[in-house]
């Protein structure tokens, strides 16, 4: 089964993503900030990471930077943020994120379709 890590500081969103993605045969893990996500990525290799950018402790871009520093081989990272453009997104893409999706634009079904589509190629 494909393993997905959801990194999202908003608890309600994190739980609803988990609920939605659990309707398909995936293993879902969640982290509430970049630091926790980094620790989890050191322990386990995931197939896909859904990464928020604006988070406490360690934000999304810093998580990507640290992963490079720590030589962690990250899987495909989809940035799910409510920033639709700007420096943070550009930085995340430069640091290896695969694409950016505005999470306010995604319905639960669209989220599932996105994940299904992106997992095809991993």
């Amino acid at each position, binding site marked *: 089964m494909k393993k997905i890590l959801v990194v999202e500081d*908003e608890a309600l969103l994190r739980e*609803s993503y988990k*609920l*939605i993605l659990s309707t398909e045969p995936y293993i879902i893990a969640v982290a509430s900030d970049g630091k926790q996500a980094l620790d989890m990525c050191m322990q386990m290799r995931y197939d896909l990471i859904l990464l928020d950018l604006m988070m406490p402790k360690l934000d999304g871009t810093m998580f990507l930077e640290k992963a490079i520093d720590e030589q962690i081989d990250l899987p495909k990272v989809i940035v799910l943020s409510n920033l639709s453009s700007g420096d943070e997104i550009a930085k995340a893409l430069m640091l290896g994120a695969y694409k950016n999706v505005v*999470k306010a634009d995604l*319905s*639960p*079904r669209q989220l599932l379709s996105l994940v299904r589509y992106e997992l095809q190629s991993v």
Partner: protein
Amino acid sequence: MPQKPDSKLKTLKTEHEKASDELARYKLLVDSIQDYAIFMMDPHGYIQTWNKGAQKNKGYTASQIIGKHFSIFYAPEDIAAGKPSKELEIATNFGRVEDEDWRIKRDGTRFWASVVITALRDPNGNLVGFAKVTRDLTDRKRYEDALLNANIQLKAQQKELQLLNESKDDFISLASHQLRTPATVIKQLLGLFVEGFIPDVAEDHMSIIKKAYDSNDRQIQIVNSLLKVAQVDAGNVKLQLTDCDINQLAEDVVAEFSDTVAERRQTIAFQTNASDAAVRADAKHLRMALENLVCNATKYTAQGGAIRIVVARKGNAVRIEVIDNGVGIAAQDIGNLFEKFRRLPNILSDEVGGTGLGLYWANKVISLHGGTIEVMSKPGRGSTFTINLPQDTVA
């Protein structure tokens, strides 16, 4: 043959008379000029002649001023700085000196003078004096100063407006991001019901949930529009130019809207007369602008209406027309269609449609491509929105 003495005398007399006549004519010329103060000074700057223009300009009669030093016309601060003697020195060394500055009239008032002092030399090169020509340009100076002040004020106001605008853009951007987060949570949670992740919801409950879901979605669209406009206004939209096939793009938009027009029992069709409709453009932004026009066409066209996207090449430019046979636009509304927050009432719907930002944004984005959007419309007959795109966008 030598001239006879009486004949020589006659010739000399005639030449003297001619010279006297010429001198008298010059004197008459100089005396009669009223717009310029023209006078002569000795090598030390003492006034020797005075014309009518000088009297009019400076307020002194000839008897009052002849024999006085020309520094009498200078402001006390200029005299203290030695300006009169410096000007004579420059004129002596370089032949002439020009100046524009305040000078003093007899009554003590100041006027803005344009001054030329020319050194006068005899045939042997000895300095015999100076000619000074002065023109009163006070009116022009006041006009220039007023213009300069107005310009300074305008620049200050522009700067203030720019700062206000930047602060407004920052606020909209921040507010939009903050508003999106709770709206995203609502969308996901209600979406669990609306999209069937949570089963067995009573139909009447689902109807209420669906309304809340749609309303939240509309809020997200408004926030998205505000954010897009804030970005384009702040100059933060950077076009990603690629070779863009407009035929393909138009076909994709037609396909995208096929469900929407079917729901409204309208039709949508695509036509092209351009075998090659490629332009350098930002496909994502261009598509969003076209989607905006098509979305408006569907909203302002009644059931059974027809919408067409027509692509044509005109020289190097590519034209995309969005044609509907909808309610049309009154002539007085066409001019301000592209203003921010401009919304036209829709006789087809009681709902308040749109944010009034779509056309504003689309027009800005097409402008960034170096293109234009034109509108032709007749109430009751429909509208044609035309995007004109240059082949090579300068971005």
